[in-house]
């Protein structure tokens, strides 16, 4: 059973239908206690980092404890950003802190017409061996829509370049993150979700 954490930010429909299409059994827990015996945890997200403040202390603790027990954890978009220490988008809102570093605003470039938000399909440049990206090749295109991003740290397994280069996918032990939306990235995205589900077994 996969727990899809619904903290009221945005729309889980796309993630739900992608998981269903992959044959996953999943639920949206109504209490943090329900995270004690799940096979994997997904923290989705769209929109503003401040929305993660709805993940209150009991939820934070339960998600953190589950990850420390070795249960695979996958943060998507703002959910990935939340795995870091915090974000310049909402300086008062702490992240989970499982990944070192801080989320910063993307740079634009007016002369090259590189706009913010960074919306659309862009390439993953693999920077390390990644279980999350098995079956894909460097250069694979995935769908992004965001204005803030994580720095390239040792946890980064795929980087993407807009005006600046940022971490598009991260992983460390059993903790994974994708700045892009695998649930909206066609076959490449479904493969990434499938890779995560396989690690949950």
């Amino acid at each position, binding site marked *: 059973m996969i727990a899809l954490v619904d903290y009221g930010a*945005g*729309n889980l*429909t*796309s993630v739900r*239908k*992608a998981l269903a*299409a992959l044959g996953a059994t999943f639920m949206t827990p109504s209490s943090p206690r329900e995270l004690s015996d799940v096979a994997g945890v997904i923290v989705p997200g*769209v*929109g*503003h980092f401040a929305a993660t403040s709805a993940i209150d202390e009991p939820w934070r603790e339960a998600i953190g404890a589950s990850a420390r027990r070795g249960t695979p954890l996958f943060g998507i978009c703002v959910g990935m950003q939340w795995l870091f220490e915090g974000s310049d988008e909402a300086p008062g809102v702490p992240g989970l802190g499982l990944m070192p570093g801080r989320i910063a605003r993307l740079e*634009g470039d007016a002369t090259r*017409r*590189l*706009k*913010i*938000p*960074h*919306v*659309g*399909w*862009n*390439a993953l440049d693999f920077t390390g061996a990644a279980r999350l990206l098995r079956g894909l090749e460097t250069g694979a*295109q995935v*769908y992004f*829509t*965001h204005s803030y991003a994580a720095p390239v740290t040792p946890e980064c397994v795929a980087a993407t*370049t*807009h005006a600046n280069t940022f971490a598009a996918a991260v992983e460390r032990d059993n903790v994974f993150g994708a700045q892009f*939306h695998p*649930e*909206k*990235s*066609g*076959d490449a*995205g*479904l493969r990434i979700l499938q890779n995560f589900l396989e690690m949950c077994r």
Partner: protein
Amino acid sequence: MLTKRIIACLDVRDGQVVKGVQFQQLRHAGDPGELARRYNVEGIDEVVILDITATLERRQALARTIGAVAREIFLPLTVGGGIRSEEDAAAAVDAGADKVSLNTAALRSPELVTTLAKRYGSQAVIVAIDAKRRDTGFAVYVRSGTTDAARDAVVWAHEAEARGAGEILLTSMDRDGTKAGFDCEMTAAVSDAVDIPVIASGGAGSFDHFTDVFTTGRADAALAASIFHYAESSVTDLKRHLRTHGIPVRL
């Protein structure tokens, strides 16, 4: 590098895809789920459903259409047409839309753009602008192109961005369905006026029209309907063409 997006538009009435010429003369173009499946295989980057159903049951009919398309594709899905309130937008999102596109309602109640941007994020809110050339500037029309809104497209696009829109979908009414090419001049004027992505629409008839709108039109994405619906051209062939002309695409 961020690629230029090719977006397929499904104009849907009573659950079936239709397509008109200059907003008139609708003809039947197929089942939305089937078309979406084909486009997905061909490598379309996004799908837009524009609902033009006029009946009282439209919201339920639209939810069924969104569901049918969302089952077939794992790509960004936008829904527009008749979204007049926060409730309409919520119904579309709950049915599986990632973004909603506001047209008449955005002009009539611009605060709706802000409300939806706060609730779902700017990335989920597209402001659609239907415009015609004037001697000077570009005139915005609403109510499916029947009513002059007495606004200039460039000015309105700029305001829409300030109110929280995440993208602009700009349709040339002069070119819609004519296959005479996108209105590159209008697209460039709007694209220069905003920092958010601009999707060009109306007039796609050949692969070179797409090349033009991504270069001289400075569009971030291009939307088309009939060029794809009747299998006149495949999305794959279009993208190969664009790539050979130096335009970055997802292939």
